[in-house]
């Protein structure tokens, strides 16, 4: 993307997270895996990052904690509370990870050391990295467990003795232990069954209000994104395709990719029939991209789409939070969505 967009209305020095022009190159790929990503999360705001597998949504959230694959070269700025994560030294990075930003993983079972008790797992970071006395750390662990709806008997349990849903609650409690300003949730419900999913999502939403943290919610589930988030970013092939307030974006998508994603979501109320799928494949990382990455699969595509990459530009006015889309033909989508 040649032109970087102006910072959004919600941006400021006080944003919990402000990613500007993040570009990430991996060894052995012909194009950047992330290509000029701009993303902000305000304090107390829930932002969903939506996209299909390989679109770069997980990499974006991981770059916030500088959890990058070996050999990755990152450009741009990732500001957490105004400080650039990409420029931090190891000590600052550890402080950021201990106190400022926390991450919740996809599979809680895999993300816990099976040999350590839950109490140990929860308090270790505070005890070792923040020199908090053990009793104080345990006290906080009990409070956090209470906040996620678990009793303090869990402290003495091993991860293998808890169910997946309980364990994900423990992971959320662990994320809250350092009193972070930002929580990154990387598909936190994918490994859970549907009823537990709803509980965990509801819990995350509650806690965000209660503890005043910003939440970046990475998911491929559009329904979930619509239900939980204030604003949504839709990613495709390492770029932001569209962003805007959740309700408006899902009601009136202005990017053909968002529109296609919505059309391919199964609905219980819709007439039965074959599910609409997006034809073709996402662009390969081994090929360089010219023009709009979605052009080969887009039914609105014209010559200009394959020649020039569209900039992320405002498509609707009069909102406190802008609705932006990176499409040359976003005006054509206004009527198309009338039947949605």
């Amino acid at each position, binding site marked *: 993307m040649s032109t970087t967009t102006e910072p959004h209305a919600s941006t400021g020095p006080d944003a919990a997270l402000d990613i500007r022009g993040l570009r990430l190159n991996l060894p052995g790929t012909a194009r950047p895996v992330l290509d000029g990503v701009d993303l902000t999360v305000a304090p107390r705001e829930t932002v969903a990052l939506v996209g299909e597998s390989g679109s770069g949504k997980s990499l974006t959230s991981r770059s916030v904690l500088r959890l990058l694959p070996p050999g990755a070269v990152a450009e741009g700025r990732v500001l957490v509370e105004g400080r650039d994560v990409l420029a931090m030294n190891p000590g600052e990075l550890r402080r950021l990870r201990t106190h400022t930003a*926390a991450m919740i993983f996809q599979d809680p079972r895999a*993300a816990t*050391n099976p040999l350590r008790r839950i109490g140990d797992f929860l308090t270790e970071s505070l005890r070792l990295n923040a020199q908090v006395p053990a009793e104080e750390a345990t006290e906080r662990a009990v409070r956090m467990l209470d906040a996620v709806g678990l009793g303090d008997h869990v402290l003495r349990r091993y991860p293998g003795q808890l169910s997946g849903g309980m364990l994900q609650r423990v992971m959320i409690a662990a994320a809250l232990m350092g009193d972070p300003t930002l929580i990154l949730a990387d598909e936190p419900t994918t490994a859970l069954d549907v009823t537990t999913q709803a509980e965990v999502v509801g819990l995350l939403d509650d806690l965000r209000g209660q503890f005043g943290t910003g939440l970046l919610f990475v998911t491929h589930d559009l329904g979930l994104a619509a239900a939980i988030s204030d604003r949504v970013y839709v990613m495709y092939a390492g770029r932001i395709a569209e962003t805007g307030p959740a309700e408006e974006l899902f009601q009136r998508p202005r990017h053909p990719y968002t529109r296609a994603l919505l059309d391919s979501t199964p609905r219980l109320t819709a007439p039965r029939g074959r599910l609409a799928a997006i034809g073709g494949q996402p662009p390969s990382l081994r090929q360089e991209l010219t023009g709009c990455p979605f052009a080969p699969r887009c039914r609105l595509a014209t010559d200009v789409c394959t020649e020039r990459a569209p900039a992320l530009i405002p498509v609707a006015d009069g909102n406190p939070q802008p609705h932006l889309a990176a499409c040359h033909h976003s005006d054509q989508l206004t009527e198309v969505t009338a039947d949605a």
Partner: protein
Amino acid sequence: MTTATLIRRRPGLAGIRTDRSWLFRICLGFVALLVLLAIVAPWIAPHDPNAVDLGSALAGPSGAHPAGVDASGRDTLSRLLVGARTSLLGPLGVVVFSTVAGVAVGLAAGWRGGWLDSLLSRGTELVFAFPGMLLAILIVSVYGPGLTAPVLALGVAYLPYVSRLTRSLVLAERERPYVEAYRVQGHSGLQISLRHVLPNIAPVVLAQSTINFGYALIDLAGLSFLGLGVPPLTPDWGRMVFDGESAIQSGYPLSAILPCLAIVMTVVAFNVVGERWADQVARRDR
């Protein structure tokens, strides 16, 4: 998971792997008994192991000497019991040294990777090029007989087996998501590797070290048999086999056969126990 195949086994002894739990229990019991006997040996030995009574040399089993007397007139049972101390202490030294140093090298190589990995891996492979026994003989010939020199030499010779195993285990463990989860909590690499990765790989390393114990016992007994291990008068099983040679030629093989038996049974017992642990760890991973 191929933990079981990662552990190095000598081809000749690999056949002793067993699923029979009674054999494992017997071997474990034997090892425990042996350790106990070695500890209390000076108090329960019927005679001074070095007391020479030439009058009863090469006597068969009797009430006073339940296992007979060797060619120099020393009580075989007392020498066996007291000899168990040196015979077990030596391999213990080898195993402790090779395990501690091997884990340190393997952990550093596997965790840090890059040039450090190349340096340490190539370095330990260089040790592979020297047969352990020859290395030990070389060092003994420089420093003279004594237990320390051969134990250190064999410890160095056994180090690569432990460090290689540790390195490959660490490489696999490093990729597990819980390591990353600790990282995002702000833990340093050193903390994660020592507090979390090490306990997770410890059972496999301990199984390997138990198997190594048997091998080290054979090697040290071999050195003693060659007259290169312990000083001449020290009671030691390998040394006893060496001393018993002349007795065999005189037609009284008991004083040589008994220490042989002790060596073989101990090695087999340690091997069965180690293999069993290794198999249990492998089963747990699957």
